[in-house]
Each structure stands twice: as structure tokens, then as C-alpha cells.
């Protein structure tokens, strides 16, 4: 397992639908400036950086991180870019954890940034269809891109296959309630794209279908922004924590899994998200978690779609397959329930600045653990076609 690794600093920039005022250079620098300030260390003390940047076409350049190295004061040091679809940020955290745990570096930065909505469709005179197209280049290029593959329709495949197996679950009234709940929780996240966009379950039910079965208010929104996390090995982490008067939040479990991307016999099990299941099992084993619902109090789950959020929480052991709606109907995730899910508002309300999203989730999970004096949180990332990639990290507050 290697050395102990803890989070000692974190930051996010405002997530916005569009940043005309800043390029991804400035967004990245803003996140780094705020993260080193949060950790109370000069950038010189950071020995290596892992970049989470999903899509070259969004940034309109390949190797988008090369310009950042010097701009964030990391010249002449280790720099590695991770690009793993929606799970980019979580995989970037996983990579940094591994380097520090292995003893290669003592202090590392994880920096996620994405500038998605510069993409613009001149046919419909709007950004979204071009953003979806740009993500569409991520689908299988021989068989699926030419027939209109999108991230939404690939996740819808998984959700519909789940609904084929469990026809009474993921009821529209329940997905609507979850979206409304997240819209309430986002109120306290001043960096969120939709901080003031509170919706009622009725509004969610009435919102238009984008890709069946997903309604507009059940889908994450594309965002632009950056997020950074600083991790350190045990002695450094404790020294920084003493200096800042803030507890270390340890990364005690990490798990990752990528499934098949084709479907059928011996391929992806379409009515499950096995990537999330395997990632969670791996992370829980490492963290010594036996009963997730008892041992974990906060989850920042990558909610690309509300329906997928429900299935993911089941894969992570917080609900039973076929009874995901119990999360709401039995109050598990409702106010006062056992589990606080997405206090940041999640990607649906805070926004999905892809490479930065899971790092924003880690920032939020750490804040909530410290602020509320809670013991454990889980951070989740999902990505690629048909929810193929899954990553789970377990965070532990030493002060609780």
C-alpha cells in the first residue's frame, strides 16, 4: 500500500457556463494560486504535477498541458497528463496518490481544467450541440460515431438496460426529487454554475426529454473552470496541517476499473456499472471499510445523470439493485438521512468542467468532512462510453 497520503490544500475557480474573460491558462493558474494559498506553501515546495484535462478539442490544442507547466511555476519538474473521459479528475487523483505513496515525491499537485463551451455550432447558433459533438469524437470511431453516439445516449443505454431488468425502479418522481434535492444543496456552493437555480420536482418532470429517458433537469451541465488538490506524504502533511491549523484529510482507499465497451455475451454487462462496483470494492478493501452505509457519511458522486447516480450508489453499496429508489423513499440521501450525497450540488448543479469535475468533488468532500467534523467520505468518477470507467477514492478526516 505504500506511504500514507493526505490532502493538505484544495481549491476551485468559479464554474461558469462560459469564461470569455479567461483562457484555460488563467483558469489553471487561478486554481493553483488558490491551492498553494490554502496549503500555506510556496509553489517551489510542490515537486510534481498531474494534470486532469479531458478533451484536446475543447482546449483547441493537443498536449494542452505543456504551456501550463511554466505558467504554474512547475518548470523543470515532473508533469503528467491524465485523460480518461469523465473520470479524468478521479484518475488524476489516483495517479498522484500512487506517486506519493510509492515514495517518488513528497508533495504533489493535481490540477484539473477544462474550457468546453468555446465550441460553437454555427448551424443552430448555439454552443451545446457543438459541445456534444466534441464529446462525440470520444465514441467508437468505426461503429458508433457515424450513427450519432453521444455521452448521453451511451449512458442512457446502461440506464434503459437497468430499467429492463428492474422495471419498477428509477421512477420519474424519484429522479425528479433527487434533482430538486441537489438544487437545494448547491445553495451553499458559491463556486457553482447554478448556485441560485433551485428547481421543484414538478419542474424536473415537466422539463423536456433530451435523450430518452433523460430530461433536461436530470443531466449535468457543461461548465468551464479549474480545480486543484495538493497531496503530501505523512510527515509533510502533518507539518502543513500544524502550520495551517487544519486537519489532514487522508486518502485511505483508491480503486479503479475499466469495463468492456462492446455489449453482448462476454462483453459489458449493460444493466450494471461494474466499473463502479469493482472500483468501490477495491477502495473499500484498501480503506478497511466493511459496511459503506455505516462507515461513510459523505459521497461526492459523479452525477452525469440522476438515473446513473442512483445506479452508482447501488454499485457502491448504499442501495440494493432494483431498490435504488429507496435512497429517496426511505430517506437515505434526503435531509437528515444517513448519507450526504453531493453537498457541492454535484455536476448537475455545480457544473461539469470535465477534467476538473472530480477534483472539485474531492475539494467539496474534504471541506464537508472538516466543516461538519465527519469521519469518512467517498469521491467517485465515471467516464467513457456506457459508464465504462469507474474510480472511487475514500477520504478520512484525522480530526473526527
Amino acid at each position, binding site marked *: 500500500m505504500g506511504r500514507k497520503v493526505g490532502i493538505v490544500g484544495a481549491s476551485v475557480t468559479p464554474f461558469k457556463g462560459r469564461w*470569455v*474573460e479567461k483562457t484555460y491558462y488563467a483558469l489553471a493558474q487561478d486554481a493553483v494560486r488558490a491551492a498553494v494559498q490554502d496549503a500555506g506553501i510556496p509553489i517551489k515546495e510542490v515537486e510534481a504535477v498531474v494534470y486532469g484535462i479531458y478533451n484536446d*478539442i475543447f482546449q*483547441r490544442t493537443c498536449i494542452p498541458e505543456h504551456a501550463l507547466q511554466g505558467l504554474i511555476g512547475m518548470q523543470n519538474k515532473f508533469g503528467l497528463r491524465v485523460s480518461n473521459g469523465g473520470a479524468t479528475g478521479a484518475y488524476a487523483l489516483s495517479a498522484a496518490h500512487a506517486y506519493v505513496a510509492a515514495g517518488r515525491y513528497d508533495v504533489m499537485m493535481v490540477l484539473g481544467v477544462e474550457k468546453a463551451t468555446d465550441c*460553437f*455550432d*454555427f*448551424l*443552430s*447558433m*448555439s454552443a*451545446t*450541440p*457543438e459541445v*456534444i*459533438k466534441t*464529446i*462525440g469524437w470520444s465514441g*467508437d470511431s*468505426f*461503429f*458508433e460515431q*457515424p*450513427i*450519432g*453516439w*453521444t455521452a*448521453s*445516449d451511451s449512458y*442512457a*443505454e446502461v440506464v*434503459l*438496460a437497468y*430499467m*429492463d431488468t428492474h422495471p419498477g425502479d428509477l421512477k420519474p418522481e424519484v429522479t425528479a426529487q433527487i434533482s430538486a434535492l441537489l438544487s437545494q444543496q448547491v445553495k451553499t456552493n458559491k463556486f457553482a454554475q447554478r448556485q*441560485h*437555480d*433551485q428547481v421543484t420536482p414538478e*419542474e424536473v418532470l*415537466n*422539463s*423536456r*426529454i*433530451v*435523450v*430518452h*429517458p433523460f430530461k*433536461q433537469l436530470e443531466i449535468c451541465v457543461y461548465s468551464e473552470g479549474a480545480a486543484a488538490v495538493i497531496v503530501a506524504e505523512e510527515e509533510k502533511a502533518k507539518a502543513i496541517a500544524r502550520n495551517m491549523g487544519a486537519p489532514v484529510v487522508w486518502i485511505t482507499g483508491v480503486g479503479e476499473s475499466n469495463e468492456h465497451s*462492446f*455489449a*453482448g*455475451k*462476454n*462483453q459489458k454487462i*449493460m*444493466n450494471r456499472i461494474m466499473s463502479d462496483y469493482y472500483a468501490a470494492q477495491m477502495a473499500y478493501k484498501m480503506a478497511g471499510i466493511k459496511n459503506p452505509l455505516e462507515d461513510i457519511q459523505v459521497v461526492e458522486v459523479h452525477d452525469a445523470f440522476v438515473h446513473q447516480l442512483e445506479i452508482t450508489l447501488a454499485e457502491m453499496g448504499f442501495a440494493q439493485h432494483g431498490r435504488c429508489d429507496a435512497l429517496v423513499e426511505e430517506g437515505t440521501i434526503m435531509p437528515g438521512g444517513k448519507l450526504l450525497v453531493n453537498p457541492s450540488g454535484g455536476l448537475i448543479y455545480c457544473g461539469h468542467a470535465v477534467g476538473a469535475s472530480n477534483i472539485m468533488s474531492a475539494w467539496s468532500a474534504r471541506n464537508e468532512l472538516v466543516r461538519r467534523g465527519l469521519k469518512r467520505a467517498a469521491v467517485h468518477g465515471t467516464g467513457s462510453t456506457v459508464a465504462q470507467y469507474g474510480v472511487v477514492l475514500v477520504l478520512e478526516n484525522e480530526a473526527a
Partner: protein
Amino acid sequence: MAKKVQKVIPNAAVPPAEGRTVTIEGENYLELNDAMHTFYRRSMGELSPFFLALRDDKKIIGAKCSKCGIVRVPPMAWFCPDCDFAPAKAVEVSDRGKMLFTPPITYFANSMFQEQVPFGRGRVVPDGADTGLSVNLYTTTGILVPGIFKKGTEVKLVFRNNRYGKITDIFGLPASELSEKQLAKKGLLESEIDWEAAVEPKMPAATKKAAAHFEKAFKNLKKVVDDLNKCERAKKDIEGWKRTILVKTPGGKFVIAIDNGDLSVKKGATTKQDFTMVANNLDTVLKGLAYEGSLTEAIMKADLWISKNIEFMTVFKLERMARSLARSRK
């Protein structure tokens, strides 16, 4: 006559080389039209037998593992990863099969597919195969709605008349919409399908009651449109967009005009419409614009009809305006 050449990028999608100054909180920022473009002569390599068979022979080819016997369609690998990479050989599978799971239907597409909505994309397991082949799914009966394709639905794969060696050379139709003869025919062509024409729904004869309801509802609609037209956020949603829409309802006709940020409605008809909407009730349109219902859903339920599917683009813009107004009121 010169042959019309289909371009890799349609001309209409290519913007002019220009820029603009955007002012935010008193500061000026520059925004430039731009593109990342790469053209290819792309190798189909080991996938060539599959694509050539689609194009030249109207056949579907799979890869059968010499050890475990699994038949993968499409033949994504010629060495079986489950059998220590035992070799596979090409086998022909049927152009009939079943849906592996209920497929999604796209109503809001990426920019290259906006003219094709709504369309399904789902996995058909051809008879004789073990895996799902992703294809576009259509219905011969108008707008594709949930329920037509489900897990296990029997599907016939149909070949395009003009084939290029691409996965779009085939698509799926529900077997229940075809005759026994069509189902039995190998290599059935698109031109052999009876597509139900997009016929404008007939309006019931106007009654006094319907006319009275129209008058009342139109007043409310006008109020909603006035509010939308005062909302900066909503006006931005129709920036750069121009459409004249003739709307027919049982109680009367009216025209919706979208003109680069301005929305207006006027009673009466026009002959200069870009497209026509037929609503079973003016309330259907009113609710959509007032954020009390969804126009897309109304189309899916056949409460609202549009003469051109490409105008889902405009329908989405109207729905976005309704949401923008609701958001700006919060």
C-alpha cells in the same frame, strides 16, 4: 450535369473568418471564429471485410472464435481475447435479430445529427451472433417514440441504396412493421420500404366553442410572449435565429415570428412560413412557452405536429426560452 459531390463538412456548418468584441463588466474581450480540422484517408484495416461486405454484398459478417465459438458482430477483433487470442474466422450472420436492450432515442442531437432527430441507436444481436451491433433505429410510422423498440423486439436490418462501406449503410426497423415477404428477403433495400409520408394531421371542423377558447388562450399566449421578449436571457436564446412558424389549432391560426432575439405572435395565417405546427389545442403551445409543459413531449404524444423534423432545433430554442424566463424570475 455535374454530379453533386457530398462534402465531408457541409458548407452551412463552416463559419466566416471573423471575430467580435465582447464587453463584460466594462472590459473588452476578443472572441474569434475558429476550427480544428483534419481530413483523413482512413484505413479500415482488419475491419475492411465487414465494411466491404455491407457495401458490396449486402451481408453482415462476424468473427467466430476457433476455440470458444463466440461470434462477435461487428468483428472488432480477429483474435479472441477470452481464449488467449485464439484466431477467429469470418462467418455470415442474419440480417434479422433482436434488441439486446431497450435503446435510447435522441431528440437533442450533436451538431452533425440535428437534421436526423429523433433517432434511435441501439444494439441488435443478429441471429447467429452473440454480441450487439450498434445501428440506427427508425420507424416507418412517423416520429420515433419510446415503446416501439424494447428489449427483445425483433428487428430487420435494412440496407441503404447508396452504400459507402460505413456502419450507416444499414439501419434497423421493427420486424412488426414489415411484411413476411420483406422480412424474408435477404439484403432488403431502403427503397423497398413503405415509409409513411409526413402528412399534415387533419383539423376538426372549427366550432364556436373552439373559436372562443382560441381567443382566450391567444390573449394568455400573447402575455407569455411579451414576458419572454422582455427577458434578456430568453432573448439571447434566439440570437441569430430567424423563423416564421404557422401554427394551426382547432380554434384558429396564428404566426410565431422569431427574428434575431425578438419573439412575436400574430393572429392569422401566412404563406411565408419556414415550417408549420399543428396543435390539438392552443394550450399545448401555451403550456410549452409558459414552462408548464414540454413541446418535445407534446410532439412525442402526437398533441403537436411539426412539418420538418429538423425544426426540432427551433422547438428546443422555444423551450430554452421558457426555461430562461423561469430561471431569471428566481
